[in-house]
């Protein structure tokens, strides 16, 4: 009993000590001491090499970054983004920082939860004092975070939040280099039409499997509407994101006898569905299937979906053979660090989001968020994704340009291609680009045609 009480006291006093630390941390920061406070250790270790110490001793410029790093967020995606953003920060510091000041990148975990997202953006802005924020994965987090950014007047450049409403509300602070969900659906449907019209595939009915999130539901609605316009019937099944057992749904899909299946569910749900469908005889080798973009993580894909050959996968960004210098340098560095052969589109976009903010600071010569927003509106940045601009902005509003408000502060042309796994166990980088024709490296293999 006595020993356990001693133990208790130790634990209690430790906790109190920790609490005091927590209370003191912000204090240390406002005084401006260089010594890193406890939670800044959470930030990437982005110290510059010693030889540049002279200039770098100045107070760092802080840039924030959002990534889902723990469940229920998409941790795989978050970790890839973190790696790419760290590369960006190191690159900036290696070339002497921004305006001679070192860059400190503070990556925070959104957990994929909107309420958590608002809290961490709040923290980045008000406690860490960041001048701009990059990254961002889950749409729901983006939708919630944009409000905090607006309240505080700090710009966010979203790298992977597709939901249209994020830009269509037209907040000055919100920029996006990820594709618009509705545009992605448009490409999907154009591809399906192309299969029908140019490849002579029988296409009368499509089954859409989606997840009941704010990525999946609007995407399914857009796709349905567009398919309708193309004269193709569709049935949507929506599942809870935690669903494991798809047997019942697959029997229903089978009973619809679809000509094509489109999977809009992300994460392990997409793997589970595709493999279980293959087991039940309506997999990618039996019915033409558009697998979800997570299938581009080829190691995980082949582990989880051994029968996934002939999957069509939508790929954001240019094909690897068309990468520019920036992208090639990034891929080299990224591969060296992670052992992956290619970089995920969202990792590439998050790298660009940090670089964009850095260039906007340099262009404006100021760390004032409103100056950075001005600079971002006029930016012309050569990123890994290509030349990035935001043509629809305050001086050229959607009304004036006569376009839909969703194009507000939106990077207009993230390239979207459709690739296909054509050899079992193939690496994602070696897949065949089948659509659009200008990027095509091979003809699509269409299964199940008699």
């Amino acid at each position, binding site marked *: 009993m006595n020993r356990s009480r001693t133990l208790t006291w130790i634990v209690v006093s430790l906790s109190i000590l920790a609490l005091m630390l927590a209370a003191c941390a912000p204090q240390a920061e406002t005084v401006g001491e260089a010594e890193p406070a406890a939670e800044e250790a959470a930030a990437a270790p982005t110290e510059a090499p010693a030889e540049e110490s002279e200039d770098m001793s100045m107070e760092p410029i802080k840039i924030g970054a959002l990534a889902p790093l723990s*469940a229920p967020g998409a941790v795989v995606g978050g970790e890839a983004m973190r790696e790419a953003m760290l590369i960006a920060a190191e690159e900036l510091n290696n070339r002497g920082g921004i305006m001679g000041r070192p860059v400190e990148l503070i990556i925070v975990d959104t957990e994929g939860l909107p309420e958590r997202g608002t809290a961490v953006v709040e923290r980045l802005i008000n406690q860490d004092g960041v001048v701009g924020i990059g990254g961002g994965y889950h749409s729901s987090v983006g939708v919630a975070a944009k409000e905090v950014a607006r309240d505080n007047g700090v710009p966010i450049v979203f790298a992977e939040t597709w939901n249209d409403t994020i830009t269509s509300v037209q907040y000055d602070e919100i920029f996006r280099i990820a594709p618009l969900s509705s545009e992605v659906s448009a490409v999907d449907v154009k591809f399906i039409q192309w299969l029908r019209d140019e490849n002579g595939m029988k296409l009368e009915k499509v089954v859409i499997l989606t997840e009941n999130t704010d990525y999946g539901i609007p995407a399914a609605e857009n796709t349905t509407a567009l398919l309708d316009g193309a004269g193709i019937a569709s049935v*949507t099944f929506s*599942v809870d994101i*935690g669903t494991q057992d798809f047997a019942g749904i697959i029997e*229903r899909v089978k009973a619809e006898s679809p000509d094509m299946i489109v999977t809009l569910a992300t994460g392990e749900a997409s793997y589970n569905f595709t493999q*279980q469908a293959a087991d039940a*005889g309506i997999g990618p080798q039996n019915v033409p299937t558009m697998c979800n973009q997570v299938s581009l993580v080829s190691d995980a894909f082949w*582990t989880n979906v051994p029968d996934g050959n002939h999957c069509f996968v939508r790929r954001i960004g240019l094909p690897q053979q068309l990468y520019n210098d920036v992208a090639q340098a990034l891929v080299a560095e990224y591969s060296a660090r992670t052992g992956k052969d290619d970089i995920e589109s969202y990792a590439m976009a998050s790298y660009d989001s940090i670089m964009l903010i850095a260039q906007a600071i340099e262009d404006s010569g100021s760390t004032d968020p409103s100056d950075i927003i001005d600079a971002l509106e006029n930016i012309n940045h050569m990123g890994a994704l290509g030349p990035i601009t935001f043509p629809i902005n305050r001086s050229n509003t959607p009304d004036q340009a006569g376009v839909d408000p969703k194009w507000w502060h939106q990077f207009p042309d993230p390239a979207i291609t459709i690739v296909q796994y054509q050899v079992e166990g193939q690496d994602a980088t070696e897949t065949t680009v089948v659509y659009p024709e200008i990027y095509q490296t091979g003809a699509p293999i269409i299964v199940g045609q008699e």
Partner: protein
Amino acid sequence: MENAAIFGWALLWILFWGALGGVVTPRIYARKDLEISQASFGGAVIGAALGPLSLVPLWIATPKITSRLIGIAIAIVVGIFIVAFALADPDNLCVANGGFVISQLANGIVIGVIYGLMALGLTLIFSILGVVSFAHGEFYMIGGMVTYFMTAEWIPGVSPIVAILASCVVTFAIGYVFERIFLRPMGSGEIERPTEYAILVTFGLAFFLQYFTQALTSAVPVKAQRFFPFPSLELPGDSGAFLRMTPGNVTIFDAISVPNPRFTAAVLALLMLAALLWFLYRTWVGKALRAVSQDRQAAAVTGINPDSMNTLAFSMGAMLAGLSGASLVQVFSWLPQVGIPAAARSFVIIVLGGMGSLPGAFLGGLIVGLVEAAGTGCIPDATRAAAYIPAYGMVILTLVLLLKPTGLFGREL
């Protein structure tokens, strides 16, 4: 749904007479000084079955409410439910397409067998220790993880049987250590209110195991390859009308199709079940276990050490969860979080079957498997059918707890 009204009215009818029977019957039986333990539930199902046609004779004759009577009444209620559904939605796949129904039933039964095996572990623990392990799902998850890492990463190419045995050893060992440190003191009276303590401490274990695994394995989903792929086969040779096998699937009569991984898992589950029954009924230790579950004091008098039986039961329960995980890791993609819905389903099953009842757990597993299949297969709105999967089992759970907390085979305590 074409004639949703038919279904709605049938449901209202059932509910109304069920509620009336449930409330009035025990009062009538009490007034006549008869046994009332079954009166409430019995009255409810009998009322729901035939409404006034059955309630009036019941109240006049007040027969002894036997299990058989309740069984018949439940069958009638289910029958009315199905007929009303079929009338309301004649084009539904569940009504119009026989092959679809049979496939769904086959799927439900196959998965139900595995659910049953997992729930068996939980019910074994409950029958000996009197506690429900909230960490059951995590043992399931660890069983799958160990099997995957054995076959795919540590010793690639190792026989799945070895991997499954390894997962047994690991889950048994974790269960053993945990029981010795955290649950053993419950027996000595050192811990007050042991049931609540057990809920919380196994909950803590679940929390720990889940995040520990996540910290070690990262969050990338993994999946083992098919343990035993089918040979490619067609009977009769040319058409395959009787039996068609591909490595991933078997189709019988061109109608019932069962995927290979599920089939393998269900066969494994049945083998394990047989082994378990042999252990419990044919070996001395197994008999001792059953003796302790029936009467602790009496068993102790005959020289059985109840404490070591506790440890054995908990470790075996954990191992059974690990086994079902090990056999399902080739069916589903595996993540540290997979245990949560699996555990929730096991809770449903043991409550439905009756806490501590072994046949109840097995039957409960089948019923839950079938209900989930029916729910996903038959709900007309495609966007809702699958979204509510997690809720189907929970609806059963709450209904059973409200109507008949002892479940199908529960002991009246």
